Structures are given as C-alpha cells and as structure tokens.
C-alpha cells in the first residue's frame, strides 16, 4: 500500500513541477497556458467585461473556423523592459500564434494600457493580406477612438470587423483561400510585420465631433428624395464629417450619433455603397433602400419623411439590424415600420432576408 502512495506522490510531484515550471513574466506566461478558460482572449490587465470576453471568444472561434486565422489577444499589465514590438514578437514565437492553422496564419493583438501602447503583429502567412499600412490604418482610424473612450472590448470587436471585411474582400478577389496555406520555411511564425500605436485608454470622455459650417449644414439638409439623402450621407462619410446634427438625420438619429463613436475607418468603409445599384421602396412616410443583387454585407438603409424632406433613420436601423461574424446583416426585430419592403421575401429563423433564392 505504502508503495503505491509513494509512486503516486512521485507522479504528482513530476506533474506539479511541469505545471509550475511554465515561465511567467509580469503576470503573463511565456508559453501558451495549458489550462485556460479561454482560447483566444487572455485579459491579464482586466480591461474587458466577462460578457465582452464571451462575445469576442465566439467571434474569434468563427474567424478561425471560417478564415483559418488564429487571432490571440493579450492585455498585459506590464511589458517589463521590452518595447511592445520586442514583447509581441517574443510572445508570438513562444506561444507559436498561428500553429493551429494551415500555415502560420496567426495574428497577435497586444494591449499594454500602462505603457499606453497597442500592437497588432501579423504572422508570416498573412503578411500579404494584412499589410503594415492596413494594420496601421485600422489601429489609427478604428481602434484608437474606441480605446480612448475606454471601450476596449467594443474597440477590439470593431477592429475585428474590419479584419473580416478585408479578408472577405480578398476571398472574393481570389487572393486568399482559407483552405490553402503552407508551412513557412525557417521555422519562425512571425517576421515582425504589423503596426503599433500609442493609445491612452480612457483619456477621452466623449469623442469630439466637429460642427459643420452653415454652408455645409444647408448642403447636408433633408432632401426631396430618399436617394438624394443617401447620396449626401455617403458624401459626408467620404469627407469624414462626423457632426451628428446634420439635416439628413432624423431627430432620434442625431441623439444616437451624439453618443456613438464614429470612426474614419467606418466612414471609409461606406465607399462600398457608392454607385451600387439598389432597390427603393416607399410606403407612406417610410422608405427602404436595399441591395437584393448583393450579398449580406450590404445592409439596407431606412429613411423617414419629415417636414423638410427625407432623413436617415439610423436610430431604428441600429436597434433592429445586427451583423454576424462574417459581417452579414440580419434582423433581430421585425417590430418596426420598415418591414413592408421585405414582405415578399423569405426571412429565415435567424433573421436573414433571402433575396436571391426563394420569393414568396
């Protein structure tokens, strides 16, 4: 009996030795944790809420499944004596980010709130898709405004949306194939690609939105037709006009935008709608502009007729339309006055409108 206890103790001590032998540096393990409640999010600096973390985990699971990209996000209380680039590269190699893909398709997102630095490092298999310039752009024009308002979880999610729309674009153009990829020579997971930015989390109470001049106010007032109003909105986006009090918005929308973080990258993304053929349906004071010939990345626009003309109703859109992990839009509620436009199409149980396939 004593012999068995002894053997068991020996095994236990070996196990414990391995368990605690994992190197830790500034509360961050130098190797991928073996036992962890999460696969993609390692929030050592405690910046993300549990709900936000669960949402992100789900999102990243899809990113991995659908696009063969392994994105690991780490928030760290300290970088030690390293620069964020050195730290990120060290973790990238030690954790071997991207090892669960078909060929070093890893991304490492590092947030160091106390050093006020953020870095996205791109694995060797993805350098062609996510260039340094693109990564710098999404950090500066999308992530930074959210982080400055201390909305870290939302900011990460918004950044992921742009990563997904980039990869979707590359797949459509035949420049990226999730089912392909080869192991890179030389045995390194990253050659130091990506970009970093100085970001002071929580330094801005509320985003400053410049008020437009009287001339522009006139130009961006409510328009006689829904098309014209949408045209003006797309122009406002391309000129990065963030003033929430433009006449092209309904009163509720103005209120909504006042509290909303608007980024240049989101506005640049609206370029995809320019010159795209659409369908317009009007019933009473309500109008819907939608894109039955396009895929679900093109979400519809709701407009409402006021005394001055047609205005965009983003307040309602934001309440009833959501986007999934592939940036496809769907309804979470049918309880709104714009449903008339979709009456003749099938809507599945997940809220997706099937324009192309089955018409009622």
């Amino acid at each position, binding site marked *: 009996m004593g012999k068995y206890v002894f053997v068991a103790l020996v095994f236990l001590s070996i196990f414990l030795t391995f368990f605690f032998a994992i190197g830790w540096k500034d509360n961050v393990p130098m190797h991928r944790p073996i036992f962890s409640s999460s696969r993609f999010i390692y929030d050592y600096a405690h910046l993300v809420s549990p709900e936000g973390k669960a949402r992100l985990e789900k999102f990243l699971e899809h990113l991995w499944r659908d696009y063969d990209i392994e994105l690991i996000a780490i928030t760290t209380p300290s970088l030690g004596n390293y620069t964020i680039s050195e730290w990120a590269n060290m973790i990238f190699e030690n954790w071997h980010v991207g090892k669960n893909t078909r060929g070093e398709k890893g991304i490492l997102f590092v947030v160091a709130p106390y050093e006020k630095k953020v870095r996205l490092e791109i694995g060797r298999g993805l350098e062609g898709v996510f260039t340094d310039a693109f990564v710098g*752009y999404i950090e500066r024009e999308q992530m930074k405004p959210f982080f400055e308002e201390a909305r870290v979880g939302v900011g990460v999610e918004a950044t992921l949306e742009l990563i997904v729309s980039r990869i979707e674009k590359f797949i459509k153009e035949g420049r990226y194939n999730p089912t392909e990829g080869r192991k890179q020579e030389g045995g*390194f997971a990253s*050659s130091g690609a990506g*970009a970093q930015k100085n970001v002071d989390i929580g330094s801005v109470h509320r985003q400053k939105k410049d008020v437009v001049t009287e001339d522009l106010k006139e130009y961006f007032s409510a328009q006689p037709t829904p098309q014209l109003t949408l045209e003006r909105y797309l122009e406002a986006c391309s000129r990065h006009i963030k003033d929430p009090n433009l006449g092209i918005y309904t009163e509720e929308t103005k209120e909504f935008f006042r509290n909303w973080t608007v980024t240049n990258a989101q506005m640049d993304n609206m370029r995809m709608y320019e010159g795209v053929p659409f369908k317009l349906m009007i019933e009473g004071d309500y109008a819907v502009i939608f894109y039955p010939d396009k895929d679900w990345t093109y979400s519809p626009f709701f407009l409402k007729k006021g005394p001055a003309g047609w205005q965009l109703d983003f307040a309602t859109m934001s309440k009833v339309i959501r986007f999934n992990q592939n940036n496809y839009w769907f309804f979470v509620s049918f309880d709104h006055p714009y449903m008339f436009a979709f009456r003749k199409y099938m809507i599945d149980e997940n809220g997706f409108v099937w324009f192309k396939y089955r018409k009622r």
Partner: protein
Amino acid sequence: MKQGRAVLSIVSTLIVIVAGLALWFIWVYNGLVSSEKAVEEASAQVQTVLQRRLDLIPNLVETVKGYAQHEREVLVAVTKARERAQGVLADISKKKSLGKKELVALMASQGEITSALKNLFSLVENYPDLKASQNFLALQDQLEGTENRIAVARQRYNYAVRRYNTKISTFPGNIIAPMFGFAEKPYFEAKEEAQKPIEVKF
C-alpha cells in the same frame, strides 16, 4: 585457430572504433555546416528587409515633395543616402557570407539613411497637411513596420551567429572547424542610436 579468432576480434573492434569515429566526425561536420547555413539564411533575410526599406524611400520622397517642394536639401540628402546604401547592399548580395568589413559598410550606409530620414521627419512637423494625409500616414506605417522587421531579422542573425561561433570554438567543433576553414563570423551590432526606430509624435 585460436590465434586467428583473437586477430579477428581485434580487427573487428578496430573497425567498429574507426567506423564510430568516422560517423562522429561526419555528425560534427554536418552540425557545423547546418549552423553555417542558418547564418547564411539569416543574413539573406537581413538583406531582404534592408532592401525593403530602401524600396520605400523613393515613394516617401515623392509624397513629401508634393507638399514641401522648397525643402530640396533634405530630400536630396535622403535620396543620396539611399543611393549609397543601395550600392553597398548590391555589393554584399553578391557574396555568400558577410565579413566584418561588409557589415561595417552596411551599418554605416544604413545609419546614414536613418539620420537623413530623421531630418526629413522633423521637417514634416512644419507641414500639417502632409502630416495628416492618408498617403503619408500609410508610408510612415510601412516604414515603421520595416524598421521592426529589420530589428527582428538582425536579432535572429545574431542568434544564428552566436550558435555558430559557439559551435566552432568549443569541443568537438574546435577540432574539426580549422580543418575545413570554418571561421568565426561577425555580429550585426548596430549602434543604439542608428537602430532606434523613427518615431513621429502627433
């Protein structure tokens, strides 16, 4: 009969020892060759990223020119430094491995670019339109990204050199290395100042 058996066993023992020695010799030699190859690969990677940096510069100069035509001197200095560095890099890429002399020339030419770029970026401060233009911001991201790649490639080169140098200077490598002309390789030690990435504050 008995004597013959004894001779046989001595001979066979000798054969085993000689064969063992030969195998060991081959094993050590192969180890040296493969770590030399690792150094060569690492140095090729360093040259690739240095070339990448040089390739970005004409674009940068063009962009800055569009906003700041009067700053001829600084722009010309950058272009000249780039040309010189391109010459050095072209000479080196013909050689298989980097000697001390080549590395010193390489570092000097790259340091020249770094200081010329520093002047360029401090000048940009006077042109807010340029500083805020998407084109310039993208170039700056590309340049910073490349500086980081250079730092990573340099660090990996030094690591490979350290492994190789240790191998040829310790037993058993130190016995075999001189026979085949394996010589010590230089480190890529950039001056702290020259290798610091350019940082533009906004």
